[in-house]
């Protein structure tokens, strides 16, 4: 009888721990704010989890491609980021600039207390006429771009995903 009680107690403890651990595990995936994205424009360059880790490298890689090789457009273009992640002001209906804490960069960066230096020079809202060249004619990222990006991510982050 006493032994049974032990088992029950043990089971209870595990159960409680198990139940306790469950929400903690779910929350671990969602720690930090959610980045606003308009999924109707297609999926992001990479899944959100990976973007959180490598977005700065993608931006930097892309910036050098544009500076030195004149490669523009496509999903990796900064303008494409700003277009899909655009947040509109509830009152005015205009896209918010980085001056607003609702801007998608600031949503996370304020939380992480990391200040990006991009917006001292770059415009933080997409220009009115977004070039059609941004995304391929089928609404998806062009295959050549995707391959390039995959190779880059594999090379830079293959070992520590």
């Amino acid at each position: 009888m006493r032994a049974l009680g032990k088992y029950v107690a043990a089971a209870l403890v595990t159960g409680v721990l198990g139940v306790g651990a469950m929400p903690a595990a779910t929350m671990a995936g969602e720690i930090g704010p959610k980045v606003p994205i308009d999924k109707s424009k297609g999926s992001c360059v990479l899944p959100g989890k990976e973007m959180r880790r490598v977005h700065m490298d993608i931006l930097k890689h892309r910036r050098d491609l544009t500076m030195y090789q004149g490669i523009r457009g496509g999903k990796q273009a900064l303008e494409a980021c700003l277009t899909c992640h655009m947040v509109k002001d509830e009152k005015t209906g205009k896209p918010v600039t980085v001056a607003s804490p609702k801007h998608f960069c600031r949503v996370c960066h304020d939380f992480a207390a990391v200040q990006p230096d991009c917006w001292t020079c770059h415009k933080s809202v997409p220009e009115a006429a977004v070039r059609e060249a941004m995304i391929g004619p089928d609404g998806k990222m062009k295959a050549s771009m995707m391959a390039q990006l995959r190779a880059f991510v594999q090379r830079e982050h293959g070992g520590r995903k």
Partner: protein
Amino acid sequence: MMDQGARDKTASGQEVSREDELNEARRAFMRNIAAASVISLGGGLTLFTVGGSQAQAKKPEEPLDPKKRWGMLIDTTKCSDGCQKCVDACKQENGWEAEPHSPHDVQWIRKVNVKDPATGFMMSLPVMCQHCANPPCVDVCPTGASMQRADGIVRVNMHICIGCRYCMMACPYKARSFVHEDIPEEKKRFHAPMGKGCVTSCDFCAHRVDAGKIPACAEACPEGAMLFGDLNDPNSALSKRLKGIPSYQIREDLGTDTGIRYTRLP
């Protein structure tokens, strides 16, 4: 300075040549439109035939063609004092503002009036980054921010510019300027970012050139005085024109081999 007789001759023969050049400018414009429309279709495979010899356009995801060297011929006989259209177009396109002769405002292109004190002959010409083949600004840059693209366009990589302004001192054309103040969000241009603490200059509208268009100044010139094209392509309109007439570089003696050439420079 040219003598009076030489100028009269040019002036008398000008009627025909101006018509020819206008036609050539129109043809170039049509070629650009054709190339651009093909790009927007997402095809691009036929690009090298569409533009004829011009073939300016590259697909957006393609790297630069190092065989090209972009250049420009500016016909000062067509450039009039007081006309600021090229400057205004550049301001509009690239989002900078400057008072004339301001010592601290950003300027990418400016109109310069020159006068021969001996004869009183005056002329007006636009001066911007000359896109040298041997750019002194690139030589002196301590960080590699001042750079030359494979297609000959000289520009500042503001991501690594530390704002030392050495390139401004090195440039014989006073083409570069320093951004002294923060640029407010509404004045920024998406494709021409610039910000406080960096040096900036004309980049030949690289974003337009990459999309197969001509620079904003050349497009805006009502006289067609600015002819943009590929110096390395012997069949480009620019090369053909340069072959036919004498053209000069500013401070040719420095050996910078500028991409921008002028006709009728004093």
